[in-house]
């Protein structure tokens, strides 16, 4: 029964909160932001994100999951209400601050020193942007085989290597970095976790264009980058454990938000697309086949939403199962893909003429083909669907592990 305030919000309190958030959404969500954010240059996107973040912050809605002392303090039940309403009113997503308010914050809260927290948590509220430096060219699904090294030199570490798929690294002020401090230890041992200032000399960030044509993923080249030992987070050589413990910390609420967005804007776009008369004048939705698919997809989305709410509640109660986060991630990402695939089919040839999508939207922008292709950003990163199935099988069901290659 952990989680401060988990069971304290009465139904009436929650209804009040819902009304408050609803009113706030109506008053604050910029009208027509989707159209305005479609195809905008990066600077405008960044400015819009920072502005929206501050707007949410003033309302107390930017970091509801943080402890009260740092500016958060909502119970799980309250957060569920908040995210449901933001999704229902089609609020812009917090894309830019995502790693900052989730991964960075949960790592700082779980493993950081008081100094580190004081240095960064308020800064994040003021707009400090973080990036995750985990993956490498030869360490994707097999993250533990990462090769970036951090050599101790006096009160510092000197880092060399290359990171890949660092989302938003171009705008980042700080980086959550995993690097090998003991090259002789076996794979998962000997990795340390650092907070790296992105303005340190020796850091070279190069954007990678992704399949939808955006460049928010980056490569980070690290060439004799000096990190003060004070920026180690958690014990030296114990970075893998720290990263694992904090990696999924935000998953529940994030997935809840995404599930609600899929169930709101996402499904609404789909029904709208199906209700639009085609070239021949007939509406797809009048076809029994289309109705059947819509009903099946809506059912699955409702199931996802319930799964996410349950995960959040159980997380708060400390009863979350070992594979629940993987189940939700796998199910969301593959369902998202099916929904978008169906959207592409229904919208037909015209779907392919939507060449840009609204920045700051999620994976349900209404630009079907881009959203469909973008859905692989969910089935691949953060542990591919294949990895998730292995986790569910082994940690969730207790099935035996594969024998390790070569012994």
């Amino acid at each position: 029964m952990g989680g401060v305030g988990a069971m304290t919000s009465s139904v009436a309190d929650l209804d009040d909160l819902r009304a408050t958030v609803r009113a706030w959404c109506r008053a604050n969500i910029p009208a027509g932001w989707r159209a305005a954010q479609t195809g905008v240059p990066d600077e405008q996107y960044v400015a819009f994100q920072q502005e929206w973040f501050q707007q949410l912050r003033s309302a107390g809605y930017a970091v509801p999951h943080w402890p009260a002392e740092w500016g958060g303090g909502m119970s799980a039940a309250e957060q569920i209400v908040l995210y449901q309403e933001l999704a229902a009113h089609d609020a812009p997503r917090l894309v830019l601050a995502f790693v900052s308010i989730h991964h960075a914050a949960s790592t700082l809260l779980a493993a950081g020193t008081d100094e580190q927290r004081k240095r960064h948590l308020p800064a994040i509220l003021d707009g400090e942007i973080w990036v995750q430096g985990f993956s490498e060219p030869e360490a994707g699904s097999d993250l533990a085989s990462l090769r970036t090294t951090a050599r101790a030199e006096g009160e510092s570490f000197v880092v060399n290597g290359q990171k890949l798929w660092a989302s938003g690294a171009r705008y980042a002020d700080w980086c959550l970095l995993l690097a090998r401090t003991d090259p002789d230890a076996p794979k998962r041992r000997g990795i340390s976790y650092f907070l790296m200032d992105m303005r340190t000399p020796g850091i070279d960030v190069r954007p990678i264009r992704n399949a939808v044509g955006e460049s928010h993923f980056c490569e980070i080249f690290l060439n004799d980058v000096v990190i003060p030992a004070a920026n180690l987070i958690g014990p030296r050589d114990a970075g893998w454990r720290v990263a694992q413990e904090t990696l999924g910390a935000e998953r529940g609420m994030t997935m809840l938000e995404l599930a609600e967005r899929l169930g709101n804007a996402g499904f609404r776009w789909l029904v709208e697309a199906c209700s639009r008369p085609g070239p021949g004048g007939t509406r797809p939705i009048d076809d029994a086949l289309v109705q059947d698919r819509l009903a099946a997809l809506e059912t699955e989305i409702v199931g996802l939403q319930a799964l996410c709410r349950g995960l959040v509640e159980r997380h708060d109660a400390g009863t979350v199962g070992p594979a629940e986060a993987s189940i939700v991630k796998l199910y969301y990402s593959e369902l998202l893909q099916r929904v978008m695939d169906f959207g592409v089919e229904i919208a037909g040839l015209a779907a392919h003429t939507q060449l840009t999508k609204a920045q700051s939207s999620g994976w349900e922008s209404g630009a079907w083909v881009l959203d469909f292709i973008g859905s692989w950003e969910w089935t691949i990163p953060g542990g591919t669907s294949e990895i998730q199935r292995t986790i569910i099988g082994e940690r969730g069901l207790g099935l035996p592990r594969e024998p390790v290659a070569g012994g």
Partner: protein
Amino acid sequence: MSTDFTEAHDELRTVARDLLGKAPVRGSVVGVDWPSFAESGWLGLEVPEELDGAGATFAEVAVILREMGRAATLSPYLGTAVLGVGTLRALRAYAGRDELLRAAAAGLVRIAVALPTGDAAAAPAGEPIAPPYRVAPSAGAYHLSGRADFVPDAVDADQLLLLAADPGGEPVVVAVEPGHPGLAVAGQPVLDATRRFGTVTADGLVVDEGAVWRFPPATETGAGGAAGVRRLLDRGALAVACDSLGGAEAMLGRTVAYAGARQQFGRPIGSFQAVKHACADMAVQVAVGQELLEAAVTAVAAADPGAGVAVSRAKSYVCAAAVEIAGQAMQLHGGIGYAWESGVHVYLKRAALGRSLFGAPSAHRARIAARFV
């Protein structure tokens, strides 16, 4: 759901799993003897306390149904406790009705309700549901005719409740006992040996007015006969979904256990990704199905106006998934799974029949989709 409820359900589940797990196996079929049933108190879960029932809700009935699905139990629970008690409680408070409820709770009477159990049970809102019988007054009595197929637990029932349309088209329930002149009940054997069905034919059947029971009149809150019938059919559909989820859980559990133990190529087959990932997909389906089921059970127990759609979601998803999961269980058990002895076929047949009972997934999806058009 509050913690108290959860704990009460956990306890009920444990007791049920224990009792059903000990039930005698006849052939490959697990049955529960009637005295154990009567004692269990499960029959009267939804019977009001003043009629010697437990005064509980469908949420508790759902716990039992899921455990029966898990054990693939052969029992008249669907006929008596789900449809029988549900029908009686949906009617106006006739004296005979209350007596029956009391008897049902005590295990003194087995009930079967003759209503549509095929796709008609999932007709979209707005499409009327035709009762299988017609009743008309004639010379101080009532004449009944019609026929219902696949009536759950009809053959062993001591009391039949027939859903009929009166001359005004209003649904009513006619209570008759087997052996009544003009009433014919015939067994309808199915491949799923864990379920019993019958056809109930009324031809030249005459009853007096006291046997014709009505639903409460329509009110602003939307009750009335038509709504009552829908709620009954939703209970039936949801009961099958509970059963199917229990079966799916059993199949997943058995497959995981087998895959962890069975060695081929020098390692447990569960260490191969083909098997492990298939089990993971089954686990995802069970997890999603459970959420949809719980939502529907909560809605039905609370007589929520949106309960029908929630039921259709649970029924369509869970019952389709249950067939897939039982099929995968057979596949992943290899030759053993295809052998009669393993009992996997019992679950596959039960799931396949459950998929069609009270509306196929496609019928329920059509009902869901009617809201979009």
